[in-house]
């Protein structure tokens, strides 16, 4: 039962782990859908593979709990001294006299369980928590589909015991993130006031994001009389967590961390691939990305940022693996990709892209591929061998790749991420970096549209793009809301500063009199000072870039309006042209809006009895009239109201024909909305209520 050294060494990176594994990052928005869009011809669905934990286990829990208990002297699978350290870390104790192993709760462990834990993890019948699955992959392990084992580059399979201890370490790391976040939240409140419900909700959210709290802290928070008591409990837990991690930091690491940071630290030493096939695909994908982005202004600008001193573009690695064991696992299960700064790698999620690869293949090959590509290694081989499939993949995921490459650029340009990795700053993800990555990917998208608007007319990114152009402030707040709702490690520069100050306050309490302590304290202080500087610089840099974008945003709005309007008009969709005009607010002259309104009205008149199509256009016209503070001509208004009545009648007929319509709730909602805009709203609303109540 050898302990995998790579995994063990990897544990030390958990000090900064959650930050290094920068959660973040792309919205599969579009890509998930675009690339998995229904294929022309017969669709084939990718198979899940055999390693999703749904098979019956070889041994049941009851069998593993059966005596005899483990006896060290006679055991066939004897625990080695090295392994014993792991057992002890998990709270087990080996009685030297009896040779028996007791669990943390005191019961004796069975021989069967010791053997089972020492055997390799089997993904066919066992399920791993999403963060453990992802973390172990980040340490260089990959799923071997044929055996359902997680193996390293030397083909050593990870054991259940190793995974258990890894989970324990990740738990300790997430504890630190959780308490530092709670500490910052409580520190700003009036100590004499009761603990606000927000704090307990925040605890729940941390837990749902698979971040754990130290034992007993949740109860203390719930029972705290006031903020002062809650803060005292959190402060104590924070101190305990910092002491634990500080104790893990060897003096020489502290010494290194007190030296000025080198940009790119944390990315340099670990550029190893799992195998040659992964390396070859990464190389090919990077060439494809370079080629694709070269033809786009913001794309080539981003590529130039990765140039080394010799002028050669050095992009991060691009690898594809199952980011979670199953596609519907929490966390990153549905993400298209993320950037891992500790590995300097963009990880593309197998689950998010494979369907798209199959859809893009010739129809005759899809059935075979749906089975074959259930193995991620075969997907790697397929993409390597098929430049056309690779190109289709890169083109369909270009916004995702742009977004993740922006994070890679952020990690390379800023010392803040280096200082997080060195423990000189708290591990947390500033949402400002997400704002930048999202707005920049839309700068890239904008350039694509301006070059060929016809091509991207129905692109699923279009509505977000128009939203961003229409109101960037709202777009940015939406990003913050999404990150705060879903990712426990989300923070922002000022809050990270508060966390840093809280840490400093705790470290100042560490005794300086013990031998060696004064040196550790001095080094830590020096390191944190470097962290402060890096954070301040990152914040200043972020503000500067935001200001620059404000100017560019105005230009983008001015450019986009006429181009989009022209192309929508050419496509015979004047209402969409008008909508684009409305979205760009004051960027368009009144004469243009007049013209588009007239064209839309003309189209409405031509639609005759198609009231569903008509109301879509009326809604756009209403927005355009709102924009200009115009009242509608009474004659037009009458026609409009009649069309709304007609569409409600259409909905009512649908419900009459099928009272249990599968989309009944949506139909009722829309019918009510349109009824309010009609002349006979009271009568229609009454009829809708009756239809709503009719079951069969």
């Amino acid at each position, binding site marked *: 039962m050898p302990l995998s050294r790579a995994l063990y060494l990897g544990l030390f990176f958990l000090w900064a782990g959650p930050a290094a594994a920068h959660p973040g990052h792309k*919205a599969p928005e579009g890509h*998930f859908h675009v690339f998995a869009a229904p294929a022309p011809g017969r669709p084939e669905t990718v198979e899940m593979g055999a390693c999703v934990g749904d098979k019956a286990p070889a041994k049941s829990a009851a069998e593993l709990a059966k005596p005899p208990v483990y006896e060290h002297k006679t055991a066939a699978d004897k625990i080695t001294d090295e392994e014993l350290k792991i057992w002890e870390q998990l709270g087990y104790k080996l009685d030297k006299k009896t040779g028996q192993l007791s669990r943390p709760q005191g019961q004796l462990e069975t021989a069967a369980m010791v053997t089972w834990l020492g055997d390799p993890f089997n993904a066919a019948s066992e399920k791993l928590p999403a963060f453990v699955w992802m973390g172990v992959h980040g340490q260089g392990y990959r799923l071997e589909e044929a055996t359902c084992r997680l193996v390293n580059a030397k083909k050593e399979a990870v054991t259940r015991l190793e995974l258990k201890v890894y989970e324990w370490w990740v738990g300790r790391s997430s504890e630190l993130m959780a308490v530092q976040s709670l500490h910052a939240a409580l520190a700003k409140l009036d100590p004499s006031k009761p603990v606000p419900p*927000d704090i307990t909700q925040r605890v729940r959210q941390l837990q749902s994001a698979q971040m754990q709290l130290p034992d007993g802290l949740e109860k203390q928070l719930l029972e705290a009389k006031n903020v002062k008591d809650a803060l005292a409990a959190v402060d104590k837990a924070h101190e305990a967590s910092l002491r634990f991690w500080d104790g893990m930091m060897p003096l020489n690491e502290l010494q290194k961390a007190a030296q000025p940071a080198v940009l790119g630290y944390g990315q340099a030493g670990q550029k190893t691939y799992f195998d040659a096939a992964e390396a070859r695909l990464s190389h090919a994908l990077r060439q494809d990305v370079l080629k694709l982005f070269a033809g786009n202004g913001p794309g080539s600008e981003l590529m130039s940022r990765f140039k080394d001193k010799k002028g050669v573009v050095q992009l991060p690695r691009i690898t594809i693996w199952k980011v979670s064991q199953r596609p519907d696992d929490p966390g990153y299960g549905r*993400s298209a990709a993320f950037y891992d700064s500790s590995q300097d790698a963009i990880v593309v999620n197998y689950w998010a892209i494979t369907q798209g690869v199959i859809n893009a293949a010739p129809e005759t090959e899809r059935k075979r591929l749906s089975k074959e590509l259930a193995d991620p290694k075969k997907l790697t081989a397929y993409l390597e061998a098929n430049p056309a499939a690779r190109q289709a993949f890169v083109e369909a995921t270009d916004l995702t790749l742009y977004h993740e490459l922006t994070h890679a650029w952020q990690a390379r340009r800023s010392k803040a991420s280096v200082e997080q990795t060195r423990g000189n700053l708290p591990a947390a993800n500033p949402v400002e970096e997400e704002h930048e990555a*999202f707005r920049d990917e839309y700068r890239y998208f904008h350039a694509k549209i301006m070059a060929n608007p016809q091509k991207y007319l129905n692109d699923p990114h279009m509505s977000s793009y128009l939203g961003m152009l229409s109101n*960037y*402030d709202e777009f940015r707040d939406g990003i913050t809301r999404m990150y705060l*709702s879903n990712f426990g490690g989300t923070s922002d520069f000022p*809050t990270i500063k508060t966390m840093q100050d809280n840490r400093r306050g705790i470290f100042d309490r560490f005794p300086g009199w013990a031998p060696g302590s004064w040196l550790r304290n001095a080094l830590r202080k020096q390191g944190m000072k470097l962290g402060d500087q890096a954070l301040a610089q990152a914040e200043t840099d972020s503000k500067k870039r*935001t200001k620059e974008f404000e100017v560019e945003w105005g230009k983008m709005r001015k450019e986009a309006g006429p181009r989009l309007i022209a192309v929508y008009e050419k496509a015979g969709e004047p209402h969409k042209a008008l909508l684009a005009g409305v979205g760009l607010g004051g960027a368009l002259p009144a004469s243009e809006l007049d013209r588009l309104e007239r064209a839309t009205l003309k189209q409405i008149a031509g639609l005759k009895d198609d009231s569903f199509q008509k109301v879509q256009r009326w809604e756009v016209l209403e927005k355009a009239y709102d924009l200009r503070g115009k009242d509608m001509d009474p004659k037009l208004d009458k026609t409009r109201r009649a069309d709304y009545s007609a569409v409600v009648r259409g909905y009512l007929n649908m419900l009459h024909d099928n009272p249990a319509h599968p989309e009944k709730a949506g139909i009722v909602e829309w019918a009510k909305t349109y009824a309010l805009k009609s002349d006979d709203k009271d009568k229609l609303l009454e009829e809708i209520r009756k239809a709503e109540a009719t079951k069969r």
Partner: protein
Amino acid sequence: MRPLLAAALLLAGCSRPPQAPEGKAVYSDKAARFSLHGPADWRVMEEQGGAHRVTFFGPPPAVESIAVYRHDKGGPGGDAQAYLAGQSLGGKSFARKLEVKGKPARELVVEKKAPVMHGKGGELLRQRTVVLEDEKGFWALVHTAPASQPSSAVFEDSLQSFSARD
């Protein structure tokens, strides 16, 4: 995000800060251009650029937010009409006129889907925007919450307590 309480009160430059109800704090921006009541325990992001002044973010998992924006005349976002029309994009909307502390204001309620980002999102949001115009431009106060959630009273208090320096 910055602490709300003490710092905000100091920055407000008020000799006697107005009292906030239980669970609320009086927020004033650094330049003391405006103040309002904000939930004391919500996260705060300030001056993120452009017209943005402040946003309060509620507790997860269904984060609601209250944001304040200031648009000066001639700015890139256009006038209040254009702003409201932009807000109404992508969803069902209802507009009405109302009074806030005796002054005329305009309100727009929009229901629209949150963009899908990172595999999350897509839920239906209700966004209530109130625009308060003055000679030099307008303030926009925007409350965003999941449409499935009953309307909370927090925004009403923020709106009624909103005060801008002339």
